[in-house]
């Protein structure tokens, strides 16, 4: 217990003193996860909307697979990306392993199914309501997709925040493909894992505090957003 309170006070001191190493790590975490979420959004929103609106054989199994992929284990994603990017792998010649780019790729793979699956659900629900009107005014497939994505914008933003929450908190994928190299690929979660195993509880706990604060803020933002949208748009 004494360990814990000591660690906690040192952690507070680290956070409030704006320790440079600490904030370099926080900055890199944000940079990687935000980039991954951006990539996942650019792929996931149109993919989810297209899946909601198109009809083709094998669509239902695809939706089931997509929904299942929301629970993809990060370590497995890390392993697969590792194999693809390693020297002997098919993408080895790009030399991306143990770089922030590899970490962005891994997190994008993790987050894209979340955003795509939630976007599909949002667009499908809205489509049920809008379908007759959109057909009656002669709306084409792309126009339809644009209308539904725009009108679902608040729920989609919640989906994107959920994706960010997943990316910023995961450790398995970034640890494997990033390698936890100081000043290069060290992010909050990998640092917490490393420092805890070294017995450096203060810095681990300090980062833990920041991580929890971020996660709580993201969830609060998602909730507020949903409520505001419901009040304003009915």
């Amino acid at each position: 217990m004494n360990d814990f309170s000591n660690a906690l006070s040192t952690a507070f001191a680290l956070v409030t003193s704006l320790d440079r190493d600490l904030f370099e790590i926080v900055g890199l975490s944000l940079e990687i996860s935000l980039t991954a979420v951006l990539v996942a959004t650019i792929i996931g929103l149109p993919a989810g909307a297209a899946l909601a609106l198109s009809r083709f054989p094998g669509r239902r199994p695809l939706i089931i697979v997509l929904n299942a992929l929301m629970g993809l284990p990060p370590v497995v994603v890390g392993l697969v990306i590792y194999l693809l990017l390693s020297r002997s792998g098919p993408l080895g010649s790009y030399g991306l392993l143990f770089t922030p780019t590899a970490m962005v790729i891994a997190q994008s793979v993790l987050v894209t199914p979340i955003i795509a699956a939630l976007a599909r659900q949002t667009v499908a629900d809205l489509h049920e309501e809008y379908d007759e009107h959109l057909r009656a005014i002669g709306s084409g497939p792309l126009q339809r997709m644009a209308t539904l994505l725009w009108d679902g914008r608040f729920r989609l933003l919640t989906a994107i925040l959920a994706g960010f929450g997943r990316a910023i908190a995961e450790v398995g994928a970034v640890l494997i493909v990033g390698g936890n190299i100081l000043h290069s690929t060290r992010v909050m979660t990998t640092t917490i894992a490393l420092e805890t195993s070294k017995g450096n509880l203060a810095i681990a706990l300090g980062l833990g505090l920041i991580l929890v604060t971020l996660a709580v803020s993201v969830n609060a933002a998602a909730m507020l957003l949903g409520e505001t949208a419901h009040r304003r748009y009915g």
Partner: protein
Amino acid sequence: MAADTTDTNGLLPMVVDAVSYRAGDQALIDHVSFRLEDSRRTVILGPNGAGKSVLLRLCHGLLAPSAGAITWGGSTPAATMKRRGLVFQRPVMLRRSVAANIEHVLKTQGIGRDRRRGLVSAALDQAGLKSLAHRQARTLSGGEQQRLAIARAWLLEPAVVLLDEPTANLDPGATRAVEELIIRLGATGAKILMTTHDIAQARRLAEEVMFLHHGRLLEHRPAVEFFAGPRDPDAADFIAGQLIN
């Protein structure tokens, strides 16, 4: 009179030829045939469950008939869709402002930004919604939503406007506002084809009545004649205010 309006309206005559629509083994529309020759206001009257909404959706091309054919001025419903407006019983309100709801239809039809602004403003004026232009459409009252739906259907000078029980969920004040809008819309030369189960409303609005019951068209006559003495016994009972089954 009839000849004049026919000439200016490219979608008339509208011909429904032996149309049936089945869901499973039940015929929701059972071998219905009729012609609409001119721009008089036509009301499809009948009790709930008569098949009125299905018939209107068939006419617009939202449903495809199981048998028979529908043509508007010789073309299919799908090919002529953009020249008609459609108003639903429960209007679909996009999660946008009133003005944006109108503009969305224009954008869908490929109207350029400059022209859109004028058209949106004119449509808001027509429907008496100018002061609500920036309100979120889904926060409007039922009557205001239905007026917005009519304004949307009115855009781009439609040759025909189809309305499915447009006042079924409205109070008398809102109903009057919507009916006045329908009459003004008809006065522009647009053919009005609407459904209602409300006999008083049919008396107020109809120039021509089609009486539909159990998916079959039992009468199709000028409103004055129909209300003076329906030939069909079910129609007579219905307008006498009796419950028919």
